[in-house]
């Protein structure tokens, strides 16, 4: 059974600081996704990572994938309040179903 774990589950940080969210998964996968969810809202796709060593960047967020370690990271650079949200990683197993991590609730304080 594919398991996906994120840490930390909750992150409170000051504006301007850097931090990394970690996503570990238990079995081989060739697709890893990062999503953002604002309270009461839907899931917004941020990144798709398809190969070992893949790195994607959008604004202050950068995601990377190490398939050998079964680890993805989401790095936040110089956080701003607008980045406050819950971030989920999700991994596909043998089919197309997404198995989600528990989410990291990020709160950026002014």
């Amino acid at each position, binding site marked *: 059974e594919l398991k996906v774990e994120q840490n930390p589950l909750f992150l409170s940080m000051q504006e301007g600081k850097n931090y990394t969210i970690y996503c570990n998964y238990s079995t081989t996968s060739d*697709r890893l*996704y990062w*999503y953002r969810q604002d309270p009461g*809202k*839907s*899931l*917004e*796709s941020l990144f*798709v990572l*398809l190969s070992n060593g893949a790195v994607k960047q959008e604004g202050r967020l950068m995601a990377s994938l190490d398939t050998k370690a079964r680890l993805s990271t989401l790095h936040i650079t110089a956080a701003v309040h607008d980045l406050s949200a819950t971030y*989920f990683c*999700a991994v*596909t197993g043998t*089919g*197309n*179903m*997404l*198995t*989600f*991590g*528990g*989410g990291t609730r990020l709160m950026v304080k002014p």
Partner: protein
Amino acid sequence: EPEVTQTPSHQVTQMGQEVILRCVPISNHLYFYWYRQILGQKVEFLVSFYNNEISEKSEIFDDQFSVERPDGSNFTLKIRSTKLEDSAMYFCASSSNTYQPQHFGDGTRLSIL
């Protein structure tokens, strides 16, 4: 930008009643999915649908659940006899192929009384 639309946004139903949640996936997408998220918990996969048939389903998707694509645009999730534990946010998603991200709708909040 095209989006997945879901109706209703909130559904309140008595336990034991049938409920149908509706979704209009993005028009050129071929893969359709339902997920649910119980309040404060992780998002859980229910079912995927491709080429007019179920391609995968989870343990949650038991005989009380069914999906249908009644026409070229709608994709529905039916719960035959609702239970209290079915209360959750239900998300529909679609994708153009198996490698592109799944695009999620805004969800239907289902409350079972």
